């Protein structure tokens, strides 16, 4: 029974992280694309397109953190201690970016500083999230169930590569979101940006796919030993097809399809990483079962999570539905 619970929890947290990455990914992407427009009206449209959603999107990050603590306290403790600095940097960046949403609408003279805070905060948060991911994949030194390394163990070229990859990926999500939600010159530029970013994302995905099996033997064994190689080969093939389709949709002037193509690309990349590290939550030391909370805690929490998650997803769909459609120039949602 405990075995099943732990697996279910790994699934729930995997879902929360995936939703977070996609949802906050596109709104962080808006901040990343901010410097590439000099036009204040366009910046307002960009922010307006995400204003009703960002708070809910970021709540998935809280659920990811809290869920990790609830279901895998040992992993939560180890990961947060080991990746202390990028986690704190990410949080500080999110503080700047979060308040900038409200402050820039109220500010007049200082608006450009809050534009900067919004953009820099988005970029740093994305970069840190990628470095946290890289720091986790490359492995964390654990002794007696606690972190046993230094403050900068995470800072490797591989972590930086992952950081830049996530930054580019979020920018792609943001650009395709703008293609879907805006019109006119803003949408046209986003379409051109999305193509470049798509190539960038493919480059980073390729680099990570080469780097991880070369540097980490456990990952090479997972992917290239028979029969795994046959079962797993659809993942890279599907990725290539999705990338091709996204490019084609961008090229043919489709509005909504590129955004969903970018999401699919993210999910495939995510799936690839899960395949690489499973069943480790903290590679190469703690599996999900070793890090699991007491079964009584996991089941108490699950009893509420299973009915509540559909409700939460329900009102999420509701808010995206009521604020559907394109933002026109000069349009603001009213405060």
């Amino acid at each position, binding site marked *: 029974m405990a075995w099943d619970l732990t697996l279910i929890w790994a699934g729930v947290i995997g879902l929360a992280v995936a939703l977070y990455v996609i949802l906050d990914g596109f709104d962080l992407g808006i901040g990343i694309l901010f410097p590439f427009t000099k036009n204040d009206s366009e910046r307002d449209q960009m922010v307006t397109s995400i*204003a009703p959603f960002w*708070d*809910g999107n*970021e*709540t998935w*990050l*809280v*659920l990811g*953190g*809290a*869920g*990790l*603590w*609830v279901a895998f*306290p040992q992993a*939560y*403790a*180890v*990961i*947060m*201690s080991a990746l*202390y*600095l990028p*986690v*704190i940097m990410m*949080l*500080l960046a999110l*503080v*700047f970016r979060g*308040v900038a*949403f*409200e*402050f820039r*609408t*109220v500010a*007049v003279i200082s*608006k450009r500083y809050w534009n900067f805070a919004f953009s820099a905060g988005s970029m740093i948060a994305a970069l840190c999230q990628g470095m946290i991911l890289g720091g986790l994949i490359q492995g964390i030194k654990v002794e007696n*169930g*606690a*972190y046993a390394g230094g*403050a900068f163990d995470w800072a490797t070229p591989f972590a930086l590569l992952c950081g830049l990859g996530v930054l580019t990926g979020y920018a792609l999500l943001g650009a395709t979101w703008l293609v879907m939600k805006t019109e006119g010159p803003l949408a046209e530029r986003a379409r051109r940006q999305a193509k470049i970013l798509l190539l960038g994302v493919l480059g980073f995905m390729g680099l990570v796919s080469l780097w991880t099996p070369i540097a980490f033997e456990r990952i090479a064994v997972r992917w290239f030993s028979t029969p795994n190689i046959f079962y797993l080969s659809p993942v890279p093939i599907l990725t290539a097809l999705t990338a091709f389709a996204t490019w084609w949709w961008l090229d043919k002037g489709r509005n909504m399809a590129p955004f969903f193509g970018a999401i699919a690309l993210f999910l495939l990349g995510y799936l690839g990483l899960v395949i690489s590290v499973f069943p480790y939550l903290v590679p190469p030391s703690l599996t999900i079962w070793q890090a699991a*909370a*007491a079964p*009584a*805690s996991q089941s*108490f*929490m699950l009893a*509420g*999570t299973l009915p*509540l998650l559909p409700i*939460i997803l329900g009102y999420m769909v509701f*808010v995206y539905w*009521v*604020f559907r459609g394109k933002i*026109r120039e*000069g349009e*603001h*949602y*009213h*405060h």
Partner: protein
Amino acid sequence: MEFDPVLIARLQFAFTVTFHIIFPTFTIGLSAYIATLLAMWVATGRDRYQRLARFWTRIFAVSFAMGVVSGIVLSYQFGTNWSRFSVFAGNVIGPLIGYEVLTAFFLEATFLGVLLFGWGRFPPWMQLFSAIAVALGTAISTFWILAANSWMQTPAGHEFRDGIAYPLDWWAIIFNPSFPYRFAHMLNASYLTAGFVVLAVGARYLLAGRYPDQSRTMMRMALGLLALLAPLQLLLGDLHGLNTLQHQPMKVAAMEAHWDSEKPGDFHVFAWPDEEAEANRFAISIPNGASLILTHRLNGHFPGLKNVPPQDRPPVKNVFFAFRIMLAIGFFMIAAALVGAWLLWRGILFEARWYLHIVAHTWWAGFVAVIAGWVVTESGRQPWLVQGIKRTAEGISPVSATTVATSLAMFVVVYGLVFAMGIYYINRLIAKGPDTRSGEAQAGGPGSPLSSAHDAGQEALARGG
């Protein structure tokens, strides 16, 4: 430079949580007020209520954003700075925080989007429904976070095996002995805090001769509430104190700077508790006052600090002085609420400028009282992290003190900047005041050129603000 890692970790948590608590305290109360205004709008159709609701919603948005971002930091700090605590208490505390996210945060975040951006898009009942959902979300959030905090004060419903807490009875964990008192006291404190801010803003406008109708509505509504809740808080606080005496007697001993169990306790109006000498200096006291409050008998006895060795005592000065600050503000609030209600009843409130001046300048009362109250309860729990079971020093992360000190410095700089700007912008929104344009122009909707918040900025700029 060498730092004490426990002290630095505590300082960091104290700093970030103190900063955070300011905003939820305000938004819990304010969301309930906004929901009430919208309910009155829907019921009466009077435009005044809708304008006030929109005005306060703008202020709510800025405050809520600061609350959200500082709250995300906290949810990760348990792991970054208190990872050993996360492991030994995670089975019990983790699910309570998890339920807070699931039942409260998503509700608030989703319907706040509708409330903020739905004006002119949706029918009034939908705005009302969203406001109620947000208000309900903030109260549910209070419920869970105080259940978690109260378990650390009065742990129940668990067992420790190999130094790790395992849940036995969730009902006992959530409704642990101090929880009902702490929850009621804190929720009431939030409504009081927001009530005094609304009262202050109403008084400020009346003194300046602006928005007379809306100001009177604000002051009437606020005083009606405060005249009930301020005295109620005294009762709730007293019950909470008696509960604390039962479960955490050393906290109460520090609150009263009471050293000897053999003697009845005096109530010290002022004193300088000397922890070395285990005595009070410069005491101005009401003889047997503390005994009367705590035991309801003049010569009643209650445990003194000397009952436990010095290393098991809380830092007396923090607790003692914070308690006095909270108490003084509490009595001020009762006086301000009752006098205001009396003036209102006599029909002379809006001409009583001396009274308007006082309340216009005491908008901060609730915030300071809440922070002082939390210092009493958290410092008073020391040296324990989980009362009587785990010491604070046992909870920290295996992270170097220098690292924690560096991040603390960054938090101080970032929060200082964000807080200063947040206060500045809220003040600007208040200075701008409720929208007085006609209902239709105000309803705006898609295609209207400027947001009202933008207007606020423009007007402030025009006035040299």
